[in-house]
């Protein structure tokens, strides 16, 4: 049955509908609008609406409350949502059980229910009204202005919101030149991605002479990660229809098509309903608004071909053919659909038009930047808290959208990149978070504005995999008409696939770049020309990841699964065989487990205590509940198993190697070289070996006897360690170079960075590294009663906790950023707080106040977070005039470390730059016989990273020696075979993570006893049972 309605052909009739709807609304005390966008529908919103209606009947509230569906509110993250107008109370995350309470309390007794309102998770602030919810209040709504206020399936709701008034103005009051003039004045550019000025496009088409013209709307939203157009069609279809009527009038078209994806059933349904209603009301059809202007609109359902988003391909498709593009010119404005002049715009572009005509182009042009006017709708998704639809003024920084509106990255993960523009766009890293949303600025940064897909990626995303993903997309969607795209994208994909399989070759990166350029220059249409963009942008910003894949066979994000057995093992810098040793714990075979540990790490009992356990951040179990406590299990093995006996390795090589520095890196290198048959001597300035493990980490975290045990084993293997030997004092560099064929330089970073403020030379001011060294040397050290620590890293926490143990009454850590930015390990921070250490955030020291050369106070400056820095965190900047003073007698500077080159001869010889030693891919310095690694190369890091560096350098030195002698690579001796059982518990998924037992707080004070006590056998067995054994697939393959 076709809809029938009196024709609305005068402005008076529009007014009377508006009045009638207004009066009708006023009869209800409350109008409940239930979001019916696709995501909310998927979360059951339609059933909720029915339940509300049932309760309203039950309680006889039909005259008081109206219930209706509304379009997507954009805040999909908290769906299903409901707004209760006129006040605009915002309810979120509703379930069927919540409805009765809302109906009774709010609708019956006029008391809105706070517990279903929006609350900020971190601050707990309650937001009652939709206008206050931060996600929505920081937006600027033009295109989405009707969402939440109208039922998309009711044309009169749209008319109530001033709908079809712009169409009336355009048809009845304006000449075509005036309409085009307004659109040109608005500065509106195509929202589909290209950004061509809309007014200009219309002008070209209006100037083309033809008996027939067409207006097309591109709703073939194909970019992965884009759902703006779907949402607009679902929540405000009439705005698109109205925009198209105005466009048709401007160019003189009588027929229009909306080309919409078949994959959008709800959008199709609502658009069809809207067209039917518009026809019934006389906004479509013949003699619209009595102006003798005719316009018919039809939907054309796309059949799933990405290339049909390209305008010439889209027109081919409407003509019923394969959707392949054709060369331009002629442009569609001259020869488009069926060879007639045609205007094609995107959904969002049309949706902007009624507003521009209604309020004037100049008004619209006030929003935005010089080159981009108005607002842009973005679909925010990926690794982001508040995913959904966002409309912001042009010129808003990208980081503001992601962090202030989007709420940042969930689960405490770090931002890595944002993908803009889909397969034609690019990935921008943290350093571009300050880039403004503007066509030209984004292109300059290496992406494109695109249609509005904004996919946020966190640290667990592999950028090579992303490039491969997009290339696969383009390859699959290439229509095949032109060779560069058909074959070129296939070749690029093959290269990317092999890199992701771990089979990348030297030269692959250059080949990709070469192909990218050729395809970009020679492909026929936009799809092909832009297909290499995701590869180019990831190469530009994440080249190191490509190199890691190709040269180190490492996928740091642990995504490319052909490259590894399990994610935890791959994430570990030294590739510890985690699933195996956990399986052995479970099988009560601790001695075997210990042997597995020692295969890759000479310091397992240390790493069982002080590691940052990257492995756990990649543990698959974390997706179910919490990661397996890998670090604690490792410690359990070393605490409880008999340490495997170590035998001296015979010297089989004539070359001798010297190592400078007996820290984790130097010792790991020495041991690896010794295993390969070299005579190795390690030189150490301090009385005992161990470097930072010995003199940096306090005893309560890493008891000295534990360290000593592991270093003794290295000695037993045959490594000679000469302590109390300082280069430049006890032995010269030239003597070293005379004695040894090659040197490994691993002196660490032994000096605290200066605060660089007044009063720093006063007594009572310490550097954290120096202070910890003094304490760990057993020298008597006396700190004051009120200790202030500056910084937020591990050495800040270590010195704060040490100060607590030395009897300080108060210890306060001052950090210039926020809690979540603290670089120190979370468990350390928690333990410090338990012990009474206080934290102050967003403060930086500005002056140390001294009396008689001794510290008496500290002046601090309050900070606020400004724009983003290159790490993706907001930069702290001082707040003017907000300083304060605290009384303190001890200040510990822990804001960074640097290397000390006691013998300046080093600096020239190995080319020190800005305190650090530059090395090549093989860890070689510019001196042909000196390699370097550990903190002195990469800055302060964890033990495990230093071990990796040492081992890599040892391998590189060995390879170099053998290559020079034309010898084959070293063959590791055959290892004892250890059978790894596979046994999974049925109920493994129900076990929660075992907590680490700790020393009581009172026992920690004044003592350096180890705080973490280690698992009991029972706890360890339970914890080991939680491992999901991601290695099983590959293990079975290798067992076969």
């Amino acid at each position, binding site marked *: 049955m076709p809809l029938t309605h009196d024709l609305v052909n005068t402005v008076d009739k529009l007014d009377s509908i508006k009045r009638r709807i207004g009066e009708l609304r006023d009869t209800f005390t409350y109008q409940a609008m239930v979001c019916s966008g*696709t*995501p909310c*529908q*998927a*979360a059951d919103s339609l059933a909720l609406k029915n339940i509300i209606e049932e309760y309203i009947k039950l309680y006889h509230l039909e005259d008081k409350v109206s219930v209706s569906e509304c379009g997507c509110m954009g805040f*999909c*993250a908290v769906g299903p949502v409901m707004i209760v107008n006129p006040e605009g109370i915002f309810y979120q995350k509703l379930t069927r059980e919540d409805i009765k309470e809302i109906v009774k309390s709010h609708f019956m007794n006029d008391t809105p229910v706070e517990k279903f309102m929006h609350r900020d998770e971190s601050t707990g602030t309650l937001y009652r009204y939709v206008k206050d919810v931060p996600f929505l209040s920081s937006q600027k709504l033009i295109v989405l202005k009707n969402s939440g206020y109208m039922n998309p399936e009711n044309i009169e709701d749209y008319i109530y919101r001033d709908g079809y008034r712009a169409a009336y103005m355009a048809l009845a009051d304006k000449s075509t030149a005036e309409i085009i003039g307004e659109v040109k004045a608005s500065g509106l550019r195509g929202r589909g991605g290209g950004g061509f000025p809309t007014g200009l496009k219309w002008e070209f088409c209006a100037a083309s002479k033809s008996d027939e013209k067409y207006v097309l709307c591109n709703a073939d*939203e*194909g*970019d*992965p*990660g*884009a*759902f703006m157009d*779907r949402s607009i069609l679902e929540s405000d279809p009439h705005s698109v229809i109205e925009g198209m009527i105005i466009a048709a009038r401007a160019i003189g078209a009588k027929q229009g098509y909306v080309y919409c994806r*078949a*994959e*959008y*059933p709800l959008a199709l349904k609502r658009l069809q309903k809207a067209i039917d209603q518009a026809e019934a009301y006389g906004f479509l059809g013949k003699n619209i608004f009595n102006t003798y202007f005719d316009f018919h609109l039809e939907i*054309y*359902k*796309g*059949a*799933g*071909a*990405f290339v049909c988003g390209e305008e010439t391909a889209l027109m081919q*498709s*409407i*003509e*019923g*053919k*394969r*959707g392949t593009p054709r060369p331009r010119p002629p442009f569609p404005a001259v020869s488009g659909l*069926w060879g007639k002049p045609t205007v094609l715009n995107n959904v969002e572009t049309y949706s902007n038009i009624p507003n521009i005509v209604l309020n004037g182009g100049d008004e619209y042009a006030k929003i935005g930047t010089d080159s981009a006017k108005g607002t842009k709708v973005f*679909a*925010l*998704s*990926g*690794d982001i808290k508040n*995913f*959904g639809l966002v409309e912001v003024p042009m010129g808003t920084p990208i980081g503001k959208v992601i962090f202030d509106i989007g709420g940042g990255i969930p689960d405490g993960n770090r931002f890595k990149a944002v*993908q803009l523009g*889909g397969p034609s766009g690019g990935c921008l890293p943290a350093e571009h978070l300050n880039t403004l949303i503007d066509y030209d600025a984004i292109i300059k940064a290496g992406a494109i504005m695109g249609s509005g*897909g904004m*996919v946020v*990626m966190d640290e667990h*995303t592999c950028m090579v995999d*992303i490039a491969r*993903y*997009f290339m696969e*997309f383009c390859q699959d*969607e290439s*229509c095949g008409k032109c060779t560069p795209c058909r074959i070129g994208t296939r070749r690029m994909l093959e290269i990317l696939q092999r890199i992701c399989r771990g089979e990348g070759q030297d030269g692959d990166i250059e080949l990709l770049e070469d192909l990218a350029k050729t395809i970009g220059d020679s492909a026929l249409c936009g799809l092909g020309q832009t297909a290499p963009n995701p590869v180019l942008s990831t190469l530009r910003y994440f080249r190191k990841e490509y190199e890691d894949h190709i040269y180190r066979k490492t996928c740091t994000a642990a995504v490319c699964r052909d490259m590894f057995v399990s994610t935890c093992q791959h994430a570990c810098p030294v590739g510890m065989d985690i699933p195996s040793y956990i399986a052995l714990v479970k099988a009560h075979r601790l001695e075997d487990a210990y042997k597995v540990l020692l295969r890759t790490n000479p310091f397992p009992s240390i790493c069982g205590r002080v590691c940052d356990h990257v492995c756990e951040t990649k543990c698959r179990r974390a*997706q*179910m509940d919490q990661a397996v406590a890998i670090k604690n299990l490792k410690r359990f093995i070393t605490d409880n198993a008999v340490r495997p006996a170590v035998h001296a390795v015979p010297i089989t090589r004539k070359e001798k190697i010297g190592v400078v520095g007996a820290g984790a890196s130097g010792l790991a290198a020495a041991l690896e070289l010794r295993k390969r048959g070299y005579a190795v001597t390690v030189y150490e300035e301090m009385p005992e070996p161990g470097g930072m493990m010995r003199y940096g980490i306090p005893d309560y975290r890493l008891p000295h006897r534990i360290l000593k045990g592991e270093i003794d084993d290295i000695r037993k293997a045959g490594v000679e360690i000469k302590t109390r030997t300082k280069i430049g004092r006890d032995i010269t560099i030239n003597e070293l170079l005379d004695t040894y064929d090659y040197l490994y330089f691993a002196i660490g970073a032994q000096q605290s960075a200066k605060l660089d403020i007044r009063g720093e030379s006063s007594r009572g001011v310490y550097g954290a590294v120096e202070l910890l060294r003094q304490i760990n040397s057993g020298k008597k050290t006396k700190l004051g009663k009120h200790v202030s620590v500056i910084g937020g890293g591990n050495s800040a926490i270590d010195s704060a906790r040490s100060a607590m143990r030395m009897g300080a009454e108060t210890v306060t850590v001052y950090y210039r950023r926020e809690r979540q930015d603290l670089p120190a390990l979370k468990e350390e921070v928690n333990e410090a707080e338990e012990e009474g250490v206080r934290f102050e955030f967003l403060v930086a020291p500005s002056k140390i106040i001294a009396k008689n050369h001794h510290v008496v106070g500290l002046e601090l400056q309050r900070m606020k977070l400004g724009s983003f820095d290159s790490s993706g965190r907001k930069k702290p900047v001082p707040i003017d005039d907000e300083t304060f003073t605290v009384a303190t007698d001890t200040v510990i500077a822990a804001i960074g470390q640097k290397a000390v080159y006691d013998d300046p001869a080093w600096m020239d010889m190995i080319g020190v730059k800005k305190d650090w030693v530059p090395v090549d891919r093989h860890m070689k310095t510019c001196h042909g016989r000196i390699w370097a690694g550990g903190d002195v190369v990469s800055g302060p890091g964890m033990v495990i990273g230093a071990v990796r560096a040492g081992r890599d350098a040892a391998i590189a030195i060995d390879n170099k020696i053998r290559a020079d002698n034309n010898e084959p690579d070293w063959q590791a001796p055959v290892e004892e075979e250890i059978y790894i059982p596979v046994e999974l518990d049925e109920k493994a998924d129900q076990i929660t993570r075992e907590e680490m037992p700790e020393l009581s707080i009172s026992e920690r004070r004044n003592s350096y006893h180890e705080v973490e006590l280690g698992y009991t056998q029972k706890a360890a067995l339970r914890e080991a049972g939680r491992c999901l054994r991601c290695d099983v697939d590959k293990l079975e393959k290798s067992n076969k």
Partner: protein
Amino acid sequence: MLDVTIDKPTSIGDEFTQEQWYAIHRIIEKYSDKKGALIPVLEEVQEITGYLPEEIQRYISREMKIPLSRIYGVVTFYSFFTMKPRGKHQIRICLGTACHVRGSQRVVHELEDLLHIKPGECTCDRQFSLETVRCLGACGVAPVMVVDEHLHKQVKSEKVEAILNTYNRE
């Protein structure tokens, strides 16, 4: 009964019922005087038959007077059309960027293991067919899996079996 005689191809046997053939005929008739109607016709026919085997294409070619080569060209060009039969329940896994980033590939692996089919295939009992599709625009609730018309949000590989079971029972 039917008021037209339909020249049904004989080679296809009894796969489609008389009603289905009649519906196809009506679709073609509905679009008879429309320009560029081939794609809508194919879309609607596929809704009736589930897929577009050669025999159906031949029939459409003859009735619409469009060369079979062009029809085949169009059917194979657009991913919406298929020449393979589909299961009673169609499972579509979105491989859009957001879904990819949030682990849709693992969901596909899980389905492959459970159903013993690869994407593009149909189970022997014709209960399920599996497809991977381009972005469905529900990125906010990624990863998504659509069974028939019902969208399942934030699907983890561990939840897949339970979802399938709800359809098995029907």
